[in-house]
């Protein structure tokens, strides 16, 4: 089953629903020994009642048996709705092997939708953007929401350039409930600008997770001869020599990634680097394991 989690294998499967099911089921099947896992609102601890606490959280059964007033607390109490912001700019079209960054982002998003709706019964929504908001599906748990989301993912073809400002402004208008916001992008912008643009989402109490999707060729480009490179978004052409790609480019890319990590941490954002040749279960487990509620 694990072999189906290879992105290259998944690329041969048509239909995001099947891909999501394959990924999640396979992933969950491999984690049977970890029962305390998931988005569910699980019991965490009892705490003695103090004045001012909400009486709705009082465990009345315990009060009846012991005549003591305790409050029941759950881990998943901060989680609820999942909103995925998918970057559908032209740069996401890049792929040095069978799976492009856009494909990989779709698989990730589909898997997360499947986990949230099918397993957790949480509302999930999708916002596809480039420099504009191209598609927005409100978070919901209604019947057929998963299909609508998957269809939205299917229709998200890369075009235009990336601009985080408009989609996030748009999202803030509709984001009236705390939840989890997942942004899947290749983040070709300065880390400071990205953090500064995304940070306001946290002010609503939402947990913001950044999935940084990159192709292996973008991290360590293999250029054996002087080549003319064409920017997918701007169509600008540039001649590049191998020694530059091997030296200076890698230093700049490493600095960029490190900047993303540092700026995210500083802004209270969760940041995960996903490379498109990385199996999806590893990507999911990396995320889910590292999440505070995942342990």
């Amino acid at each position, binding site marked *: 089953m694990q072999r189906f989690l290879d992105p290259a294998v998944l690329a041969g499967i048509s239909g995001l629903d099947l891909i999501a099911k394959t990924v999640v089921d396979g992933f969950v099947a491999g984690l049977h020994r970890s029962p305390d896992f998931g988005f569910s609102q699980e019991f965490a601890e009892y705490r003695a009642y103090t004045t001012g606490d909400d009486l709705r959280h009082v465990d009345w059964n315990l009060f009846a048996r012991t005549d003591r007033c305790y409050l029941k607390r759950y881990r998943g109490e901060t989680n609820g709705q999942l909103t995925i912001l998918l970057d559908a700019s032209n*740069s*996401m079209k*890049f792929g040095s092997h069978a799976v492009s*960054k856009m494909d990989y982002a779709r698989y990730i998003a589909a898997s997360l939708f499947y986990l949230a709706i099918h397993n957790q019964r949480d509302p999930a929504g999708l916002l596809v953007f480039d420099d504009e908001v191209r598609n927005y599906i409100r978070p919901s748990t209604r019947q057929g929401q998963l299909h609508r989301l998957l269809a939205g993912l299917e229709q998200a073809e890369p075009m235009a350039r990336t601009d985080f400002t408009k989609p996030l402004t748009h999202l803030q208008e509709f984001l009236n409930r705390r939840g989890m916001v997942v942004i899947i992008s*290749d983040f*070709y912008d300065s880390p400071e600008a990205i953090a500064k643009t995304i940070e306001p989402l946290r002010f609503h109490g939402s947990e913001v997770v950044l999935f940084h999707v990159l*192709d292996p060729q*973008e991290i360590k*480009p293999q*250029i*054996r*001869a*002087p*080549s*003319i*490179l*064409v*920017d*997918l*978004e*701007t169509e*600008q*052409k*540039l*001649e*590049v*020599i*191998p*020694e*530059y790609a*091997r030296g*200076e*480019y890698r230093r*700049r*890319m490493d600095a*960029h990634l490190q900047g993303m990590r540092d700026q995210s941490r500083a802004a209270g954002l969760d940041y995960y680097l996903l490379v498109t040749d990385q199996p999806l279960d590893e990507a999911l487990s990396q995320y889910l394991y590292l999440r505070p509620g995942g342990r």
Partner: protein
Amino acid sequence: MGFLAPWFLAALAGLGLPVYIHLLRRHTTTPRLVSSLMFFERGTQSSTRHRRLRYLLLFSLRALLLLLLALAFAGPFIRRPSSATSDRLLVVVIDNSFSMRAGRHLEDAKQEAMRLLATRSASQRAQVMVLGAELQVLTQPIEDARALRAAVEGIRPGDSHGSFGELGRGMRALSETVHTPIDLHLFSDMQASNMPGNFADMVMPGNVALILHPVSKENLPNWTVESVEAPAQLSDPKKAHVVAVIVGHHTPVAARLVSLVINGVVSATRTVNVPADGRTTVAFDSLDVPYGVSREEIKIDSADSFSADDAICFAVKRADPERTLFVHQGSDSRSPFYFGAALGATGQASFVLQAIDANQAADIDPAQYAFVVLSDVDSIPSILENSLKRYVESGGGVLIAAGTSTARRRKLPLLGESVDQPRYYSQAGGYATVGRVDDASPMMKDSSGWGDTKIFYASAVQPGQARVVSRLSDGTPFLLDYSVGQGHVVVFSSGIDNVTNDLPLHPAFVPFVDHVARYLSGSERLSGMRVVDTFVQLRSPVGEGVSNPSAVDVVAPDGSRPLTLQEEATMQTLRLVQAGFYQIRYPNGREVLLAVNPDRRESDLQSIPDDVLRLWSEGASGASRVNSASDAADQSKRSVYKLWWWVMLFLLIAAVMESIVASRYLGTQREEV
């Protein structure tokens, strides 16, 4: 600019190869799509520009390499203007012949030459020569002004007779090795007597431009002692007399005081009237010289600017008459009579004849005699023959009269030459006459009466290595000169009597005997007056296997020794280059004093007419124009400067640079792999 093999330029089509490799092929690179050029922007552009620059550099080097290769095969050349001053060789020739001692001619010539050298451009090569009897090169073609100046300053007045013919020959030889144009500047008094007999000898070759610098514009008046007749050897001073000829060149009528100076002391003076531009003779009736060799001088009072030619020196040897051994047959009394009479009739009477029968001559030492005569002897004692051989080889002289008795012996004494088929002209009812005479021989200086002599008998002597001085009308050698060792054997192929010929009865017999006596005794060769630049024989040619270790000793007029030790042991002749008295001691111990005087043609200071000078100078450049429209244009064609060495040098540099640049580029690619 041109090309020697322009068809090789077709190889320039090969330039398309680097153009394809660097420009065309590079443009076919397939663009690669990337997500963003965000990280390529800043550093990438400068790096690419640098890379592109290196590509262009490599492309340029490769294209240059092919271009230079094609050029090298095509043989490029440029034509340099032949009139470029630095390309012309400046030849400075200063005349230092004897006539340049007149006035300040030589000093003026040197100063003018120095001025010319001073105005020369520093890059122009120049050469200094001096012209006397021959053209002497003082410097090679150089640019060093200091060396050129030193060469000019070092020129001393000479005693030679100048020759413009030698200048022409020298320039023709120079033009064969120097192909650049030559500017020949001649500083001379342009003496007319320096012109050769044939004007063509002094014409310059085509690439020589002759520029004349006459140091004297006018014909200076000059009196000189033209010649002196004086005995080289005498025994009685009262019988000797000296005759001198005083001549004036471009002079008015004047009275001149002529002095006879003996060993530095004025012995006698005469006043003579020299006609205008003419000559006169003055005689001194006695020559009262002491025993031994004396230095004499005929001198006139100095009244012109050319004082160096106011005297002629000569040497006179006073000695008792030398004995001459006359060996004859006992029955022959005519020969010693005629020969002795002729010998006594000579002006100086320096020889005394001692006649002796051949049979009684065994104990005679020939070394005690000035020369020996073997007069028609059929045999001589072997002791005498051996003594005579040694005597001749050490420098002695023998006259052999080969009369009828010698013909019977069929072999000449001393020489061993065979005598065959004697010519008895009288038996045929007639006689032979003297057909040809070698006037250059010192024995035949006065041979005017020989044509009237009747020869009735002559021995047919095989000449072998001998110099035939005279032949009879039928070609039979009549007088032969054999060189044996350091001496001479003269063969007279008839008798010294009035039977076999009538020469002893003719007046020509006396000067003949006189000259033969002087020649064989060596006084002709070893004394008297010589002219500068003539040669004196130091020793006879040494035959193979004959050793001649003895050295001659020569002291020049200035007291120097002109020969090195090796030359003193080996040289056969000496060139007399200075005027004055040469002291020579020969290998056989004989010492002589030679008076050497400059050529008196140098005393006539008449210049070459202007039209001749113009013809000479213009003829040099004119000849080049005439000889070829081709030659003048030739000159420019000849100054083609080939550039292929430079092309090859640049090719090498380009190849090295291309290797360096290409290896760096290829090295980068290897690292990537």
